[in-house]
């Protein structure tokens, strides 16, 4: 039987509002949400993190809406099933439900047109970690002093980096291009352009840390993230999440974006 432990932390950065949302099932959410979902099967943890866009009310509402509907869909469709961990199809269905919830919200309030969100949805079960992801919120695996990005980055950053690698633009141009943060895919209530889903469960071992983050974490370079996670690994997932957010805040980036982090440990 597997068990998981988690911690989460968030900062608004230099923004006047928080457009990120995160929620755990079973567990709590970063936004006001009296969770009335049924308990999942024993040993199952679902973590979801979303980075909204659309300014002020729209962005926050979008990310909360997709987190909520994603979890609700997983929770309600999970009951009828005997599988211990939701399959990729189930994650996909939950993602579609999240997308549909945006469509509905915009229909009910056309002024919210244009709102959208990224989403990382992860399930932790006996077989390990599975995920679905849309957008540019990174999902990392920390293992034995190394970190790897698990999901696909749907921003234009990878494309720009490749153009730089092939010599068509300079590395500096790639780094500062304003299109770097534009998304090729996001949950906007329209058809989803790109969806990243894990093919097989990623088996986890004690000592691993799985990190869900919004792109505000990119203030830290990857080596910093590795150092911080390694240094706080023994203090538990909450300490790791807190340390990452503290480090982001301490960079004193003048335009620091919202940053939200969930850290999950397998505990044996």
């Amino acid at each position, binding site marked *: 039987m597997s068990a998981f432990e988690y911690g989460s932390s968030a900062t608004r950065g230099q923004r006047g509002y928080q457009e990120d949302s995160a929620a755990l099932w079973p567990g709590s959410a970063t936004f006001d949400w009296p969770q009335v979902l049924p308990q999942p099967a024993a040993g199952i943890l679902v973590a979801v993190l979303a980075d909204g866009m659309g300014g002020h009310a729209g962005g926050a509402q979008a990310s909360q809406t997709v987190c909520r509907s994603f979890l609700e869909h997983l929770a309600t469709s999970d009951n009828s099933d005997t599988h211990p961990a939701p399959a990729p199809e189930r994650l996909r269905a939950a993602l579609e439900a999240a997308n549909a919830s945006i469509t509905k919200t915009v229909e009910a309030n056309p002024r919210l047109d244009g709102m959208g969100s990224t989403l990382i949805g992860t399930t932790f079960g006996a077989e390990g970690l599975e995920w679905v992801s849309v957008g540019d919120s990174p999902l990392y695996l920390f293992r034995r002093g190394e970190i790897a990005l698990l999901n696909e980055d749907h921003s234009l950053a990878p*494309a720009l980096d490749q*153009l730089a690698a092939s010599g068509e633009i300079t590395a500096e141009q790639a780094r500062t291009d304003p299109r770097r943060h534009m998304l090729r895919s996001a949950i906007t209530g329209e058809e989803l352009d790109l969806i*990243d889903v894990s093919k097989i469960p990623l088996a986890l071992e004690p000592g691993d840390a799985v990190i869900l983050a919004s792109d505000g974490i990119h203030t830290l370079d990857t080596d910093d993230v590795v150092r911080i996670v390694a240094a706080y690994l023994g203090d538990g997932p909450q300490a790791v999440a807190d340390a990452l957010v503290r480090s982001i805040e301490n960079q004193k980036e003048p335009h620091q974006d919202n940053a939200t982090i969930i850290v999950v440990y397998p505990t044996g």
Partner: protein
Amino acid sequence: MAKQDDGNGSIKQPGKFLGSLRDALAAASREDTNRLTTAENPTTAKPELDADATTSLAMKIAPPSDIITDAPETCPPQISSSDSHDSSPSSDKTDDVAPSAPPPLPNAADAAREARGGTPNIPPVVRSPAGDRHVEFDAPPTTHVVRPSPIPKEDDEDMARTQLVRGKQQVERGDFSQDPVVGWLVIVGGPGIGSFRPIYEGNNTVGRASSNRVAIDFGDDAISAEEQAYVRYDSADRSFLFVPNLAKTNVVSVNDKRPATAVPLQGMDVITMGRTQIVFVPFCGADFDWSELTELKG
């Protein structure tokens, strides 16, 4: 993503790691105070910070077994979990150099690749051969929903607002030397009578200042300088929308009604802003859209 180079770094890594952590702490003074207050031994002085950090590496150092024996009952759950990190690798091996044993699971990068079904998570960029305006993203590991209708461009302002571009991002503007016109606003009353302004694809800001995409700059100061309203043309469904900016107090009406939200625009609708009357004349619509030409050429 970048990963820490390790290779056979089981011995040199701790030194490297601690060195760089120490540097980072000294340079940024960022974690040391918090670190000490949250450390398990409140008595820890700065030098022991390193030792503590080292134990958190879990596999590098043997002594944790001493600590483990007395820790679990008394510590809060968070800490006992951290001990479980320490204990399981070291209980497998009686020796202290854990990394020398073959790891039970692949390293982070390989594990990521496996879970992705062997595909990379950085989609390769393929420039389409014609050198046209698209950079194609060939992304085998993901579901790529192909959009049926080519959207020649998305409006700059919309992109800034939503930070979303569609699956195919163009890097050039195609064959148009300027934004293609999709309709006109013709001034039929008030200052500027007889003049016209083009409307372009996507979102058009309408206001008195020249910074607006559609500048009604004929001297009617009852029109807001910035973004009195928006006229949008959506090439996907070939429709025009008039969207009042409700943040502005100046009165705007369409056919003598004051819209409180977006309203569809039809040809010859009369928009009134300040003391200016404007007639809307569409060019694109059910009968024509620029995408038809693009498709013919393609």
